[in-house]
């Protein structure tokens, strides 16, 4: 009997313990928040570990902490960004989220409305005049970060407008007798790949002119089949795919896009393992470094990466360059998708359990990077040390990109790679592209032009819309990719009937609803 009583008591305790840890409403206030440490105010912030590693190396960041008198104790999250967001959930459940946290804006809005995060709007108004000024002058930013009730649950960074570049091995082009200037249209591009294949493929069975990483379904824009949303309609998955892997299977050119990719695949012009989805980023890098591939379409500074990560050591003639944008039959540049100014990723929210002083400290630190001095510091560094001002008022880096960016990991350096999250700040695009090797700086000047970029409007979704989109995309996007790949590799015959049935299947799976939500959200956004 006694044994039984003890057992029941233990069971009750266990159940009570389990339910307590499953999330009550207890607030566990973080210690030392906003504390003065030898005259320096500080707060804790949860962040992806890689971002912290980058921050630790930045000379200008140290200057910023010195100037503001605020120190941030970063708490490392996982290495992968998706895992970092998941850990925010776990920390919320276990009440172990520190003063501030890096998360997705959608997370901030959902949990903020439930009381997890501070509504920053009144604090910004009072303690962050520079951010307030930015909000006032950037209505799209305001509508992006504000919820339906006018609350702001996270700071969102401005992102540089990035467009992917087409990199090519200039030395291999020359060897195969191709003049890069003659590669202007998609047909020229295909013919150049055929020439390369004929030349290098005869001695190297593993040679495929075009290779890459992640998804190979990145060329839809060449046939006008990029996902989009405008005031009248929406096509494809635009949400979270404004730049990468964005395609619209209902576009008039979509069928031809897949037809051409199939032709590239069948003729061995494109790396089959890339199309099939079995190669890794490392595989692609190795192939491109050792001459098994000559062309890629990837991140804007990748050409430089190959030049400074072994290319010339593998082959002294190794010369990676950036191709001009391809043009259509009328000679007009084919516009490519580019990143949007504000994204859902890497937002920074403040824990509701923070005391008033810590919230103010965080706001003041964030605000510094929206001040004129802060913007210059985070984009150009310190005058006389990393940049100089010319007589005409323009700025020029005096710190050498190659010297600084090749310093061993962990060593302090000047670095202004604004595509990385360091702090939320307005981006000086001139500085962003100037902070590169001459190869990329020249290519950026040539390519990053409005005439080469598609309209990528900022769309503000309601929480319900985002939730629905998120769930629909989990099945629709993967199925689209699988079916398109199946057409390209020949597992499914590519014909009009199968294509129509594919579109119908995707619509019934939720593509039509996705497009409808995107259109509604955009119409509401422009209405605002």
């Amino acid at each position, binding site marked *: 009997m006694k044994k039984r009583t003890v057992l029941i008591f233990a*069971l009750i305790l*266990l*159940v009570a313990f*389990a*339910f307590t840890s*499953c*999330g*009550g*409403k207890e607030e566990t206030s973080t210690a030392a928040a906003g504390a003065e440490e030898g005259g320096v105010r500080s707060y804790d912030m949860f962040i992806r570990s890689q971002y912290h590693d980058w921050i630790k190396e930045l000379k200008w960041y140290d200057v910023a902490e010195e100037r503001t008198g605020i120190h941030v104790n970063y708490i490392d999250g996982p290495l992968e960004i*998706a895992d970092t*967001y*998941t850990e925010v*959930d*776990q920390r*919320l*459940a276990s009440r172990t989220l520190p003063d501030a946290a890096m998360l*997705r*804006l*959608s*997370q901030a809005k*959902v*949990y903020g409305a*439930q*009381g*997890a995060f501070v509504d920053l709007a009144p604090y910004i108004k009072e303690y962050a005049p520079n951010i307030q000024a930015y909000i006032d002058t950037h209505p799209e930013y305001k509508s992006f970060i504000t919820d339906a009730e006018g609350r702001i649950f996270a700071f969102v960074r401005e992102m540089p407008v990035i467009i992917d570049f087409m990199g090519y091995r200039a030395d291999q082009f020359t060897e195969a007798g191709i003049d890069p200037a003659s590669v202007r249209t998609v047909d020229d591009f295909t013919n150049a790949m055929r020439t390369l294949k004929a030349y290098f493929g005869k001695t190297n069975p*593993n040679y495929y002119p075009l290779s890459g990483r992640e*998804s190979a379904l990145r060329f839809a824009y060449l046939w006008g089949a990029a996902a989009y949303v405008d005031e009248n309609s929406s096509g494809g998955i635009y*949400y*979270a795919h404004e730049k990468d892997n964005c395609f619209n299977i209902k576009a008039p050119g979509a069928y031809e896009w897949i037809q051409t990719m199939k032709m590239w695949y069948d003729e061995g012009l494109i790396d*089959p*393992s890339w*199309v*099939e*989805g*079995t190669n890794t980023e490392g595989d692609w890098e190795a192939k491109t470094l050792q001459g098994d591939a000559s062309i890629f379409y990837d991140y804007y500074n990748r050409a430089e990466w190959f030049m400074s990560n072994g290319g010339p050591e593998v082959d002294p003639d190794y010369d990676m360059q950036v191709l001009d944008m391809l043009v259509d039959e009328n000679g007009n540049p084919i516009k490519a998708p580019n990143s949007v100014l504000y994204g*859902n990723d890497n937002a920074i929210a403040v824990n509701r359990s923070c005391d008033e002083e810590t919230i103010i400290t965080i706001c003041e630190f964030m605000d510094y990077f929206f001040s004129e001095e802060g913007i210059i510091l985070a984009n150009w560094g310190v005058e006389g040390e990393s940049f100089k001002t010319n007589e005409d008022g323009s700025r020029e880096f005096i710190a050498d990109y190659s010297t600084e960016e090749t310093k061993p990991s962990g060593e302090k350096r000047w670095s202004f790679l604004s595509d990385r999250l360091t702090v939320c700040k307005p981006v000086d695009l001139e500085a962003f592209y100037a902070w590169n090797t001459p190869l990329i700086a020249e290519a950026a000047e040539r390519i990053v032009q409005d005439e080469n970029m598609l309209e990528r409007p900022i769309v503000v979704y309601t929480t319900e819309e*985002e*939730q629905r*989109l*998120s*769930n629909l*995309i*989990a*099945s629709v996007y*993967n*199925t689209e*990719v*699988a079916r398109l*790949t*199946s057409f390209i*590799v020949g*597992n499914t015959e590519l014909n009009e009937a199968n294509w129509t049935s594919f579109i119908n299947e995707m619509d*019934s*799976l*939720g593509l039509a609803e996705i497009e409808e939500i995107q259109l509604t959200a955009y119409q509401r956004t422009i209405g605002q």
Partner: protein
Amino acid sequence: MLFKLLPVGGMVIAFQDYSAFLGIRGSEWVGLENFKRMLTDPYMLTLVKNTVILAVLSVVCVFPFLVIFSLFLNEVRFQKFKGTIQSVSFLPYFISSAVMVSIMYTVLSPTSGIVNNLIVKMGGESVNFMAKPEWFRPIYIFLQIWQMLGYNAVIYMAGIASINGELYEAAEVDGCGRWGKMIHVTLPGISTSVITMLIISIGNIFTVDTDRILLLYNASNAATSDVIQSYVYRIAFQSLGFPDYSYGTAVNIVKSLLAFILVIIANKLADKYAETRLF
């Protein structure tokens, strides 16, 4: 109790719109909404089909192979050789799915893998096995056998060791050879273990190895490799800032209930036809 039974209480989130911040007590109650959503999800049919085919193949192909391997291993006379085989076959059990899949990628690589090198040397054309939907299931099954071979052998060998030696002597007197002894003595002798393992396998019929699936999954083989677990993983953990734990749990509850029904049926059938049962 602590690790198996208590977490079952957490399944209540399947009936909620669970929020990590609000917790079980604070999250909104949505009743059967997640279950309705599952039943009306147009993609669910494909996922169920892929899952069931894979699970049935796992039982039909893997299970007999493991029993046969143990029976033949028992017939090996040289004890040192037998011990070595048993140890070597047991080793993969301790290797993670990530490593095993990496080994498969290396062995089956279309450019440098040993299998494709052999195919090319024999005049054939290189095949990217990892990208072929029709090859996904055989590769999955092969990995399953490879990983579970030694583990199951230990269980069956223990059963075989407990068989009364006099039965073998009696069988010999009755004129049984090695083959006859294996069929008429060894196999019935381990029938209880076999049926127990079979019922456990049926119980796990919807529990495909998610790690292995996610590692083998790619755009080309998605037609066969996208299963309930990989979908739930996408919905619950990789969605765009809205991890849907409730829906993932609802799907898992249905999956567990179906598996439980199958276990009951298998147990009844075992009791009726083999006069042995698990519970």
